[in-house]
């Protein structure tokens, strides 16, 4: 229903940084109502569990096109659309790492 994950990498910086926590909702209720700008966590066969921003929803393909905030982000520009079945959850709560 809800899961806690920790962010690694900087492809969503400065929105999400290395060490931040996110709580995601895994219920179909949330995953079937994705919108542009939502942050999602999905599974990729090569790269594992990834977190990206939904740039647009592709209803005809039952998929979403995801991006990062960094030029070097590994996202749909290289991975292609992410199918709905690969989406593990939508971020509901972002707990940023405090600045020391």
């Amino acid at each position, binding site marked *: 229903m809800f*899961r*806690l*994950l*920790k*962010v*690694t*990498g*900087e*492809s*969503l*910086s400065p929105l*999400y940084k*290395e060490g931040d*926590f*996110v709580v995601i909702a895994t219920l179909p209720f949330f995953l079937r109502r994705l919108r542009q700008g939502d942050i999602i*966590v999905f599974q990729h066969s090569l*790269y*594992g*569990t*990834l*977190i*990206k921003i939904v740039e647009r929803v592709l209803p005809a393909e039952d998929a979403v096109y995801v991006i*990062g905030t*960094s*030029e*070097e*982000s*590994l996202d749909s*520009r*290289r991975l292609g659309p992410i199918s709905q079945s690969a989406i593990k959850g939508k971020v509901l709560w972002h*707990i*940023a*790492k*405090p600045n020391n």
Partner: protein
Amino acid sequence: MFYQIFEALDRKFSVERAQAHCDIPCGIYDPITAQIAALTVVRMMDLMADAEAKGHDNHAAFINSMARYIAVKEEHAEKAKHEVRVIWGDYIKPEHVEKHPELTELVFKIMKLGSKVRQTVDRQTGLDFVEAINQFAAIFWETKGVAVKRAKAPYAPALEMVYPNL
């Protein structure tokens, strides 16, 4: 406060990671590593040719030196290929290839030359390897909007290299 709670949970239960993926820290891509590795390949070819030309009274010492040159040549040819593959796989995007359609063929050429310089001691192949990676570097820097210059490397074999003009 919540962060400290979750951090404690992570320490105890090792929370799953969600990767905001870049294989290496974002932005740290530089073809200079591949360029220097390719230059090293030519340097090893030159050292092998020198050793051969000088002749050798001490056969064991000669074989020892040759073995070391060959090992370094092998290692650096592979390193150059690896570095180009990382940039090709992790940085280059379809829009870059669209703008530089020759890029696909160029990377293929680098891979082939990288194998050929291991198989032979043909200096011209080594020079071709360096130049192909120079061309790759020029395209890479263009995608970054950074101008380049050509200058001789300040060390043997002092071949012309492409450098970012910062």
